């Protein structure tokens, strides 16, 4: 959480958006990096961001399910979104983080990301919804594109990531 606040503070100094408290029109996203691409994660679903730690493997699980970690006494499953999206396997580095998501169906769930960059505030006219149509595996994990200045951020559809396809 501390990190989040720091990021928030950074964000404000950088952009000093006076209207970021109006939740109806503005959405906050945490920008993460996976490989060379940037993705946005809706901040309302984020419980915590923790440093990479030893993940205990659970046998007989699909490869994208990396295993479980201990978060303050709670056992939380960790998913590799890289593997889930068909990207090359993760390489853990200094910047690697686990983002703990709050999901309604499956409780808390961690996703491994290469780097957590910043928090951005997007107004809804800067967000373009993307319909799910293509069979393209990666597209189905994205539910919108956000424009942040000159950059484009793919907004992750957390439902399709957290949904267990074997369930």
């Amino acid at each position, binding site marked *: 959480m501390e990190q989040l606040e720091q990021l928030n503070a950074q964000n404000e100094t950088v952009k000093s958006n006076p209207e970021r408290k109006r939740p109806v029109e503005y959405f906050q996203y945490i920008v993460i990096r996976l490989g060379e691409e940037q993705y946005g994660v809706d901040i309302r679903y984020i419980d915590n961001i923790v440093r990479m730690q030893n993940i*205990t493997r*659970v*046998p*007989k*699980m699909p490869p994208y*399910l990396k295993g479980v*970690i201990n978060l303050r*006494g709670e056992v939380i499953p960790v998913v590799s979104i890289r593997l889930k999206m068909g990207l090359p396997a993760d390489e853990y580095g200094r910047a690697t983080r686990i983002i703990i998501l709050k999901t309604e169906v499956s409780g808390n769930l961690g996703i491994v990301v290469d780097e957590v960059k910043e928090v951005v505030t997007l107004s809804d006219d800067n967000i373009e919804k993307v319909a799910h149509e293509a069979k393209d595996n990666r597209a189905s994990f994205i539910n919108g594109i956000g424009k942040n200045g000159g950059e484009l951020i793919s907004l992750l559809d957390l439902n399709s990531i957290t949904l267990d396809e074997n369930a």
Partner: protein
Amino acid sequence: MDVSQYLEIFLDETKEHLQNLNTQILNLEADAENMDTVNEIFRAAHSLKGMAGTMGYKRMQNLTHDMENVFSEVRNGNIKVQPEMIDVLFQCLDALEEYTNNIQETADEGTNDNEPLIKQLNDILKGGAGKAAAAPAAAPAAPTAGAAAGSAGGDKKWNGIALDETQISVIEEAGKVGKKAYGLTVSVQESCILKAARAFLVFKAVEERGEIIISDPSAQDIEDEKFEKDFTLIVLSDAELDELIKAAANVSEIDNVVGDVLVLAETKNYHPAENAETTAVVEAPKAAAEEKKAQPAPAAKNNNDKKPAGGKPVVNRTVRVDIEKLDVLMNLVSELIIAKNSLVSASGQEQNTNAGFNEQIEYLESVTTNLHESVMKVRMVPIESVVSKFPRMIRDLSKNLNKKMELYMSGEETELDRTVVDEIGDPLMHLLRNSADHGLETDPELRVQRGKPEVGSIFLDAYQDGNNVVIEVRDDGNGIDVDAVRNKAIERGTITMEQAAGMSEKEIIDLLFLPSFSTAKKVTDVSGRGVGLDVVKSKIESLSGEVEVKSKLGEGSTWTIRLPLTLAIIQALMVVVGDEKYAIALGAIQGIEDIQISDIKLVENKEVINLRGTVIPVIRMRELLDIESSKADEENLVVVIVKKGDKQAGLVVDDLLGQQEIVIKSLGSYIKQCKFISGATILGDGEVALILDANALL
């Protein structure tokens, strides 16, 4: 008046009263003459009526009111207990239970007036009255026996209070110093909700002016609101009677106050002084209570239902605690244990450990262990709350099925975790019904031929066995006909002929636990829809327990349910496989063996070892858990022998880390496919280790 906040308490207490009524009416059926039972029933029905009335459940109140009338006549000896009457009473209880369930679900009692039942009750009453008229011997007995008390039953209720010798002497002494003794009867308005609070104010007002010697009901009962509309005090005071009455009547919601100077000679225990002495010698309270009950006079009734003297069991001092609060406490204890484990492992690493540090850790260890045990105990409840409804059920089954049977229960006091107790009722009920319907022979002559008593017996035994609680449901009936099960299974296509030929008796019997497998030739409402046993099995397994059946054709069957005592914290053996750590519950481990690799033999292409004459299959954990290890197989293998019932298996692990107390954590709903992992735990260093479910490996 909003009473919804009392709804929960009302429901809890109603259920208790209903359970109590069920048990007592069963007792009454067995022993119709027992006045203690009748009184107990009366009290329970009476409280039910009062509670339903307070909560505004009119229909429930009406029904209980009529039940109460019947009991009151029974108590007065005007009606004899008849089997038909018991049936009607049980139907009433069912109806009340229906009301209660409705209230629980919708906060409304529903619209069923149960008029036929009320009519039946009234018929019983009339029948009773008729009989009383025909046999007037019973009725006149009442006034004569209660002559003395009869006058007390009028306005001067205080004369009905049984004073003991010290109180009498206190009153006499006070008389000598000019104080006067008064009797006061205070009636509370019927609409009053906080009767206890009003009564308290009356007590306070009176005590400002004098000394309360005794009250009826007792001060404690009044405080607990265990009185109907009025209560009676005997007061010593310098003040005038009028002043006292005024003081008491000044309290709001007090209907009226009646008082007079107390004349000792008129009080209940005064003149028969020798009577008090005799009762004092012979088991004082109980004898006194019986003496009171023996007087079926209206005044005695007043005493009886309000002040259940010696007949009332001593109630444990309890606090109702929300189970969620206990869960929080339990989680905190779990955290503490994890923290303790970290300290233990930290101290193990320091080479230059200082003695004081170690001592403190050991102290912490013993504290956490004790704390854990007490928290566990708080969560434990006797299974009695579940099994006490079964005698009634068996009685009904016996009538429905037209089979004679008796239920014998033992070990009702065995304790289990609250969550387990709540869940265990249905499976047990299924098993008992199963025994009653399929187990016991329908034809009593067949039983006699087999040398068994005509009345079938069903046993329910519960006991603790190490870290498990075992509940057995046993019957001396027909036993399971293995051939019938086998034929049925083939007929249903569950197994093929060839499979059937290769299956052991036990395996065949286990088929009974498959979904929709019922061998009952016709469907009855008792059982036979094939939803019973598989539900039992899955329910028990969801509680981390197991169920087994042993049966001998012609002699009966035994169903054994084995449940873990606690679900949250267990002793486990930590093992290493590859470079991962796993925990195995100590309860499942039979032993640890060092095996030479050459001792492993192949039987039907499966690896087995011969351990002291028993052939045990060997499971290589590395293969099972998909662990690639660079380590080559050593000559010596560490094998953990696990058991489940009489099945065993040897688990080949790489190393043993030792025994540890672990806190079981769920893997969450996201991970569910893995069959042989039952959960996870957090080790002292903060790492997560998985718990191997030995049962699933066998």
